[in-house]
């Protein structure tokens, strides 16, 4: 086996970069995709539910019940939009879709409170969205009385929300979003890289030259590593300025993790490039990888809550490991060393994928 020729790798990488810079739409996408995605995901994906429309039936009408209602609304989780006279009113309103939460305070509210073995009040929830249910459950923990006020204190569970005490989704989403954006752009870039040359007929010329598969593969990913790091910077900057996402870990660790992930994604794209015959096929294969990456990596849903099979599939996706790295470093201030298992997973993935791509690539047309 001959050593790869550095001048040749530089020649191809340089050519690749030159072509990329001449493709205005692609250059726009390098900046545009991360910017749009972070704005979109940052603002729109919000598991931190607030301002749910709610209905109220307060049959007790005592000072205590009024205080309890104001405590509930003070959480900002619900906005009382309808006031009814019977629980049936709330059920009707919920069926119509006017409200998703109903608060029912019975006329014997204060007696019930004293008895303590019956719930003092009821919260109705449209539980079709589990996130709303979770929000309502949290709501049920609202203390009815504070200590010193008659001695009755409802046993609420204190939720100690660490790392994201304000429970803002953006904080959790931005570090993972770096990975999602990189998956989309990086895999797609290299998935297209060789297929495009094949479709345009360039490959038939290129493979009659002394270029070696390893040189071609390395040269195809080099320029995009730089682009990947630009995108990482962009997402971190926007995350920090718009969504106040703190970077608690070392910046060098963040970039090192991103570098590993970019390499893994690019290598994965190259494998796709050797499988696909047309750019359209390459696009489809990229999406085939992209969707499970989003859903099974722990970016969208907590990894621990997924079924075993989904977790096992997730372990084979580079994004899973990057989401853990990124959240660990950015949010918990961990070092790359502390997360070395995830880092090594990416290294192994990148190496294997690159080898598969280089071995699959034949300097032949059949």
């Amino acid at each position: 086996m001959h050593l790869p020729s550095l001048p040749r790798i530089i020649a191809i990488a340089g050519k690749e970069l030159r072509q990329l810079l001449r493709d205005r739409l692609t250059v726009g996408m390098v900046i545009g995709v991360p910017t749009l995605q972070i704005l979109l995901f940052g603002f729109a994906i919000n598991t931190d539910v607030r301002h749910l429309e709610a209905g109220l039936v307060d049959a007790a009408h005592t000072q205590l019940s009024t205080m309890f209602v104001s405590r509930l609304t003070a959480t900002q989780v619900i906005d009382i939009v309808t006031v009814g006279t019977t629980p049936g009113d709330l059920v009707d309103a919920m069926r119509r879709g006017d409200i998703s939460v109903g608060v029912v305070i019975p006329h014997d509210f204060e007696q019930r409170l004293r008895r303590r073995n019956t719930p003092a009040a009821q919260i109705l929830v449209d539980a079709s969205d589990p996130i709303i249910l979770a929000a309502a459950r949290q709501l049920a923990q609202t203390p009815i009385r504070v200590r010193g006020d008659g001695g009755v204190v409802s046993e609420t569970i204190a939720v100690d929300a660490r790392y994201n005490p304000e429970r803002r989704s953006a904080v959790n989403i931005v570090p993972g979003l770096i990975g999602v954006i990189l998956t989309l752009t990086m895999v797609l870039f290299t998935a297209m890289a060789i297929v495009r040359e094949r479709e345009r007929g360039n490959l038939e010329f290129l493979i009659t030259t002394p270029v070696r598969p390893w040189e071609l593969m390395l040269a195809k990913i080099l320029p995009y590593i730089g682009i990947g790091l630009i995108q990482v910077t962009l997402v971190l900057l926007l995350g920090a300025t718009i969504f106040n996402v703190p970077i608690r870990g070392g910046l060098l660790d963040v970039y090192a993790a991103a570098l590993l992930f970019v390499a893994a994604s690019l290598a994965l794209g190259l494998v796709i490039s050797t499988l696909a015959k047309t750019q359209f096929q390459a696009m489809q294969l990229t999406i085939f990888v992209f969707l499970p990456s989003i859903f099974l990596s722990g970016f969208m849903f907590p990894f621990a809550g997924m079924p075993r099979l989904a977790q096992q599939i997730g372990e084979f996706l580079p994004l899973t490991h990057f989401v853990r790295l990124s959240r660990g470093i950015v949010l918990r201030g961990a070092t790359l060393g502390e997360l070395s298992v995830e880092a090594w997973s990416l290294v192994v993935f990148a190496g294997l994928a690159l080898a598969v791509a280089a071995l699959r690539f034949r300097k032949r047309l059949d």
Partner: protein
Amino acid sequence: MTDTAIVAHGVTRCFGKLRAVDDVSLSVQRGRIFGFLGPNGSGKSTTIRMLCGLLLPSAGSIQVLGYAIPRDAEALRLKIGYMTQSFSLYGDLSVTENLQFVARIYGLGGARRKARVEELMQRYRLTEFAEQRGASLSGGQRQRLALAAAVLHDPELLLLDEPTSAVDPQNRRDFWDELFALAAKGTTILVSTHYMDEAERCHQLAILDRGRLSALGSPGSLAAELPAIVLQVDGLAAPRRTTARLNRSEGVLSVAQIGAGLRVLCRDKKAASNAEKIIMGDDSAAHADVVGANLEDVFVHATSHRLRAASHR
């Protein structure tokens, strides 16, 4: 070093059930221009691709410049230049950038690269388009750029797959002048074409028909040794009607109308005298003369089973 550049023996290539190239054997002398003549789909491109190791033969053996192909294809790549049928350089790079890129791929360093690219741009009249992108070049300019890229590393053997298919006649003539200049310096050239005038210029010619080699030799000897008789018919009042009658006659391989006259290719003497009878019976004022065969007759003869099979269907 032998004086044979290419030796192919029983080369066959199948794509599924189709035998695209079927038992082709040939040898090409160094420093010669060797032509592949054949209709579309006759296996010209497939043969060229097998010769440079881009396709694996299903059967047969190939030696190019002393290398066994496909085994030593990688070593061969430094010594051959290949020009693909469609433009295969980069449309979004300029002429200079394309040539610089190819030079780097072949490992030409700094000053040598600059000088070589400069020299080729001058030789192939590309200097004034130096900064123009590949995609905006005309057919002739693209073809000169592709030739410049193919010869950049001074290959011993050039494989050109229908290099002139998108080029006007003047550019085609210039292109062939350039090929002869390369051949004069010792480069072996294998070129495929479907133009008769280009085939005529080759030192050696192989006519391919449906993947099979149906004629092999110099254009002159192929015409001189054609085992068929060519009749030149003049003075016909209704050449279309006569053509129809001749086409139905046994042993007539082809009838081509040229101006007011007909050129009739007959398989043998018997077929020729039959044809003469038909002509005289059709129009007594006409006269038919036996003339020497040209390359077109050779081509028609070599590919005639196809024509007859089609007309008898």
